[in-house]
């Protein structure tokens, strides 16, 4: 059966829009998709919050939940402690809700795209198989090269437009749909878990998200079920001056397993765009969740203009004993990134792992890291962070490892390596370690190195050009993390590493 038939079209989104999004795979990421948008008025206030809730046909309890979050948001200050500098965001000068209305013309020809960007994406080798499936490409599902199936939920600006492989997932008892659908169809699950990992008042951006989140993905894996395929969400910010606030909620019930992929793209704009997502993961007894992100938002141009401001709160709660979570992220995009995927290790013998590659070039700034909060006995965590800076970029790793009094016999191992390309960039490592019992152990290793001229010359003497040589050396530096990614993503990530460092040497 063609994937096309399996794409569930969300109500309120017309067929042309769906077709347009299906074609995401056929144009390049930098393309400003020519779709007429329906906007809510600029700015945020209780009326806008109500309007978003109404557009999503939400029940009353959800509207109230949002309004409470908004009330809270007006009382807290924007944080400024992260090592990033950016012009103050005017939160009243953003659109908080935009959805594709209809598409007047078919996508325009490739000639209209900035050739620089086009060249970038050509090298990237996208479309991905997932996008092909979403695009309804004949036979994409059976493409042998990648073997595994991946179910995709695509979020286009504020709205989830379709989810593939619904029927097959349903057979396994897996729920994979947009969060707005989950609020309507599975209120008992949403009520129980939403905000239980990232409380409404957690931080400035999370609180704003709680008030205005427009859509996102929802996953529930029932007890004992190993999800039969990878689940994936593609986020794309298209409309100008529009903030994207998705909300992802993943629940892995007892003894279940799921691998979840998140990919992000945005067109090139000279005005900055805001992205403030919240991801909550609940992992019950003996369950395991792998969450991988390849983030390739537009980073701003070589002069530091434009780009996505990425303020994201991601947290996994290992509630059950022997539960396990693994975060893997490759961050190459965004102008400003502020992001700390965290693990709450509550269950006994629960485990958290964090593997990260953060690449910053030109004027990009990244302040990322993780928090490992050990609450249960015999819990384990492992952090492997690879930061690469080039151009005038600043890259900060900030990691918190906290061993609570009851987390007896717990272990953390942190390895944090920075690589510098050129001498105008910077890398910073800021570890925070709190150990409140005497049977736990925390190990931290940090290194900073430069891309070595001798390595580059050696590669070039063998015939590689300078960029290829840098890419090879940097991919070698990142190997431990690349290995932690699912196969399809690892290939894409390797190419991204090469592309995001172009022009960084010489």
């Amino acid at each position: 059966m063609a994937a096309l038939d399996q794409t569930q079209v969300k109500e309120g989104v017309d067929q042309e829009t769906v077709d347009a999004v299906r074609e995401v795979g056929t144009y390049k990421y930098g393309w400003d998709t020519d779709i007429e948008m329906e906007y809510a008025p600029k700015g945020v206030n209780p009326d806008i919050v109500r309007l978003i809730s109404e557009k999503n046909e939400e029940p009353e309890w959800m509207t109230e939940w949002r309004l409470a979050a908004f009330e809270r948001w007006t009382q807290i200050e924007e944080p400024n402690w992260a090592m990033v500098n950016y012009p103050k965001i005017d939160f009243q000068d953003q659109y908080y809700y935009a959805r594709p209305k209809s598409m007047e013309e078919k996508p325009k020809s490739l000639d209209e795209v900035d050739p620089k960007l086009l060249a970038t994406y050509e090298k990237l080798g996208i479309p991905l198989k997932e996008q092909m499936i979403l695009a309804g490409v004949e036979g994409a599902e059976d493409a042998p090269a990648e073997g595994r199936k991946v179910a995709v939920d695509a979020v286009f600006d504020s709205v989830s437009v379709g989810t593939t492989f619904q029927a097959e997932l349903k057979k396994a008892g897996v729920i994979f749909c947009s969060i707005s659908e989950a609020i309507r169809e599975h209120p008992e699950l949403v009520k129980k878990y939403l905000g239980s990992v990232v409380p409404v008042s957690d931080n400035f951006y999370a609180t704003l998200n709680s008030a205005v989140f427009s859509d996102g993905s929802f996953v529930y894996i029932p007890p004992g079920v190993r999800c039969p395929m990878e689940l994936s969400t593609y986020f794309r910010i298209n409309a100008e001056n529009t903030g994207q606030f998705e909300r992802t909620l993943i629940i892995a019930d007892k003894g279940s397993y799921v691998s979840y992929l998140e990919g992000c793209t945005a067109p090139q704009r000279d005005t900055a765009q805001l992205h403030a997502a919240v991801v909550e993961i609940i992992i019950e007894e003996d369950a395991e969740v792998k969450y991988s992100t390849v983030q390739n938002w537009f980073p701003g141009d070589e002069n530091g203009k434009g780009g996505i401001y990425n303020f994201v709160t991601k947290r996994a709660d290992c509630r059950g004993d022997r539960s396990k979570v693994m975060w893997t992220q490759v961050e190459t995009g965004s102008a400003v990134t502020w992001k700390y995927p965290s693990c709450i290790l509550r269950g006994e013998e629960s485990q958290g792992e964090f593997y990260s590659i953060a690449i910053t070039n030109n004027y990009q700034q990244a302040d990322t890291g993780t928090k490992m909060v050990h609450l249960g006995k015999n819990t384990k965590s492992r952090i492997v962070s690879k930061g690469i800076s080039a151009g005038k970029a600043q890259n900060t790793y900030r990691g918190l490892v906290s061993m609570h009094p009851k987390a007896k016999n717990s272990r953390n191992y942190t390895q944090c390596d920075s690589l510098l390309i050129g001498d105008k960039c910077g890398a910073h490592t800021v570890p925070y370690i709190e150990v409140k019992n005497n049977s736990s152990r925390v190990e931290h290793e940090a290194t900073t190195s430069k891309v070595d001229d001798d390595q580059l010359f050696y590669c070039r003497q063998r015939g590689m050009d300078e960029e290829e040589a840098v890419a090879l050396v940097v991919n070698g530096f990142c190997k431990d993390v690349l290995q932690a990614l699912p196969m399809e993503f690892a290939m894409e990530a390797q190419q991204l590493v090469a592309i995001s460092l172009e022009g960084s040497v010489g």
Partner: protein
Amino acid sequence: MLEIKNLHVKLEEEEKQILKGVDLTVEAGKVHAIMGPNGSGKSTLSYVLSGRDGYEVTDGSATLDGEDLLEMEPEERAAAGVFLAFQYPVEIPGVGNMTFLRTAVNAQRKARGEDELSAADFLKEVRAKAKSLKIDADMLKRPVNVGFSGGEKKRNEILQMAMLEPKMCILDETDSGLDVDAMKLVAEGVNALRDEGRGFLVITHYQRLLDHIKPDVVHIMADGKIVKTGGPDLALEVENNGYADILAEVN
């Protein structure tokens, strides 16, 4: 094939002249050896020919089949057929030896407008060539030169040379740090590549490598210049009497 004329080279960063007028021609199919005391400029010559940063050519020229090498980027020289077996092979953590080789081979093929080698063909070729150098599958998978013994590093250089099939092979002290068995392996690897169309410049401090790789011409380099040129016997003379006599004679 390789023609070096009156080559003068100084360090880019300081006023230190290292090569002071080197003249040398290596014909296709021939093996030339350069011997000389430490610090005479042998490695510098190999680096300048292959395009390493940090040196400034103040006079003279170097061409390969009439093409000006000194104008080219290092990777262009590689694609044109210049290969340097490094005195100190460089470690590249995290990059598998096989990945490195394949990237290099395909980069050169691409630069020459040839198709990339298919994964299967490449594998077949690497395995056969690795076997004759006693390089096992494990060494092919390990990161480039990381944790390799001295002998493994040098054999790995020869494997790269065998895979890249260069026109002009420059070997810088490939014998240093090798025991007799490893030296034989390396020499066999080099001899297997001897060919009418290929030139060799073998830099060595000691004569013993030249027992296994028989040179056609031997040059003695001292203080940035070729001071004496002769046949294979010249190497034996150095072996027996050291450099002192030759240098005294020249001065």
